């Protein structure tokens, strides 16, 4: 059996009260002895699609680069049994577009620590769509720096946390350039005994005039003993910016349940439908049929 190591991960940029247990997370993860690397690159002015899936239990170093004016689509898929540790580094060049579809459908007993760091140059665009199925522990730490003027990033996360699973999302976008734009969205469902922490930070640094950043989190609580923690943070040292964030946390409202009941749909069926819709929304972003099948099978949701 692999040796277990304790790692402190997902430290937030500006700490809050200790009693909230949000400043950092502790992941107990089996030691990973095998490493794998992948480089995905679109040369200047070209279009390319790449995909990579590390082997079961491999530590993966992934470099994705979209050079000036290029377009790169990257599918990163994880389906490990016991442990997974991808480390993704992204460079989006001037005027380039990169789309990353990051799917983690590890086994329910898997522990994953994922790190992602990205920099986006002038007029570059980075779109990340990601889905995390329930697992024993998923610790996601993503940092995007909008360093060039007019650069953009969107980070759309969806997840299902089922019995006994833990998900810790630490997502940060730093606005450095002028007129930069960011959007962080997160939608998911928590069932009994699951624990989820969302720590989203949008930071407007001095000089990021005209920047616009928004964060939205929607959490559907499907279990009486689910634990949800939400920390949407806005840090601002520039006057001419617009920053917004919103969060909604709860079960289906009484009005919504009544509506469903009036259509012959029980509360349990309604909750199941909403859970499925979270996965279905993500499936629409996945063009690969085989991957769609695997996600549907892993989550028990029909395609």
């Amino acid at each position: 059996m692999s040796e277990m190591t304790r790692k402190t991960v997902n430290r937030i940029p500006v700490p809050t009260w200790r009693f909230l247990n949000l400043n950092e997370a502790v992941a107990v993860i089996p030691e990973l002895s095998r490493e794998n690397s992948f480089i995905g690159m679109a040369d200047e002015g070209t279009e390319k699609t790449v995909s990579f899936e590390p082997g079961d239990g491999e530590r993966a170093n992934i470099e994705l680069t979209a050079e000036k004016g290029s377009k790169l689509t990257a599918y990163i898929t994880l389906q490990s049994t016991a442990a997974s540790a991808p480390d993704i580094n992204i460079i989006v060049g001037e005027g380039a577009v990169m789309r990353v579809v990051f799917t983690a459908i590890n086994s329910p007993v898997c522990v994953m620590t994922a790190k992602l760091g990205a920099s986006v140059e002038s007029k570059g665009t980075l779109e990340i769509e990601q889905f995390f199925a329930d697992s024993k522990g998923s610790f996601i730490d993503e940092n995007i720096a909008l360093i060039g003027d007019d650069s953009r990033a969107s980070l759309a996360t969806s997840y299902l946390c089922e019995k006994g699973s833990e998900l810790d999302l630490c997502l940060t976008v730093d606005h450095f350039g002028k007129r930069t734009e960011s959007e962080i969205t997160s939608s998911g469902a928590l069932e009994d005994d699951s624990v989820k922490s969302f720590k989203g930070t949008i930071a407007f640094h001095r000089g990021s005039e005209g920047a616009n950043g928004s964060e939205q989190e929607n959490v559907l609580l499907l279990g009486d003993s689910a634990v949800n923690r939400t920390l949407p943070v806005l840090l601002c040292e520039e006057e001419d910016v617009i920053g917004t964030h919103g969060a909604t946390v709860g079960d289906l409202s009484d009005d919504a349940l009544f509506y469903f009941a009036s259509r012959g749909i029980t509360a349990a069926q309604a909750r199941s439908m909403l859970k499925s819709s979270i996965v279905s929304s993500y499936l629409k972003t996945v063009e690969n049929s085989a991957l769609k099948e695997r996600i549907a099978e892993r989550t028990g949701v029909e395609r």
Partner: protein
Amino acid sequence: MDTKSITSIDRGVYDIRDSDNSRYRMKAGLDKEIVRRLSQEKNDPDWVRKLRERSLEIYNSMPLPSCGPELSGLDIDNISTYVRPKSDMKNSWEEVPDDIKETFERLGIPKAERQSLAGVGAQYDSELVYHNVRDSVSKQGVVYTDIESALRGEYADLIKEKFMKLVPPTDHKFAALHGAVWSGGSFVYVPRGVKLDIPLQSYFRLNAKGAGQFEHTLIIVEDDAYLHFIEGCSAPKYNVANLHAGCVELYVGRNSVLRYSTIENWSKNMYNLNTKRAVADEGGRVEWVSGSFGSHVSYLYPMTILKGRGSSMEFTGITFAGEGQNLDTGAKVVHAAPDTSSVINTRSISKDGGISTFRSAVVIQKNAENSRAGVSCDSLMLDDISRSDTIPAIETHTGKCAVGHEARIGRISDDDIFYLMSRGMSEEDARALIVSGFAQNVSKELPLEYAVEMNNLIRLEMKR
């Protein structure tokens, strides 16, 4: 403390200093001997003396807070924790020494008492110098007195039962400091069924240079009652640090309402490390109204524990951080019973390099089924050298609840300024008007005189 960083506009009456004519001033610093001398000076009951000693041990063992503005400019070895003014407590303004009375006259306290208050407590440095309550209020069984007299009177047992139980010395380092050196403050008791139509007020004035104020306010509102309590504070500006580490503990009975309003206007050399906490029984309601305009550094997060079914809390606040200020403010609420609700609605403004941080926590415990919470925080940046952060946290332990949160950060719209200027206003007046409107969420909750004071403070800051 970097004296060059103490800049302030002319704050008129707030900055007038009385000469230092204290009767007694404790030497600066904090050790067992100082705490022992303080306890002797105050002729503490035994349990208070022991609380002070235990609190000092806790203070010495605890680290500084791990989040919030830095406190490197605060050196407790340079703070005198007790300054006794030359006057004992009076219940007639005529008996208060002239210079102290004139200070409170300039601040409008006696006038407000005559016109619109049910009772007033005025603290000067470490002790109350004036305390009075209208006969009509006393006849209803309302008690409003200085807390140190109450320690020895009819309510001694009740105070011993409640004192520093909501905010124990172990809560954080400055709660422990308060436990060790507290002095002055008020005790309020509102009997069952009594609804006080006009407010009570306490006003805290820290005149002494390099000193601390550590007043304790304990309010107990029994079932089916109502109270509005107003707290004001100010201090003249010095080029050394002053410290305020007061404590407020509020107990709200069944189906009662307690509104606690504060306009904080400490000078910009003050470290304001205040702790306020309320607990509400079944159907009880706590309303916080908070305006934070002063201090060099502030840590201020009134907290409410919704202990009874159907209890509720509303927090309305505004913070204005100007040059040399780092104000970390917000609110905390714990839903600890079913059917509870809370609303937090705050605004913050940053200008001239000021730093404003909104920090909140909404915690919904497992047994708080059908609870609802809403948080809204808007921040206004008035230039590109200031800073504004929002750090709101939500934690839920039950699936049967609903929480919503929204926040916005931005600047004054150029279109709004253009519109007002096209109506003949100067740009300066237009900005001041817009900012006053931005602060309206708080001003409309205050009695008129305090809303006027708050708007005056905003105008003073905007005219820099």
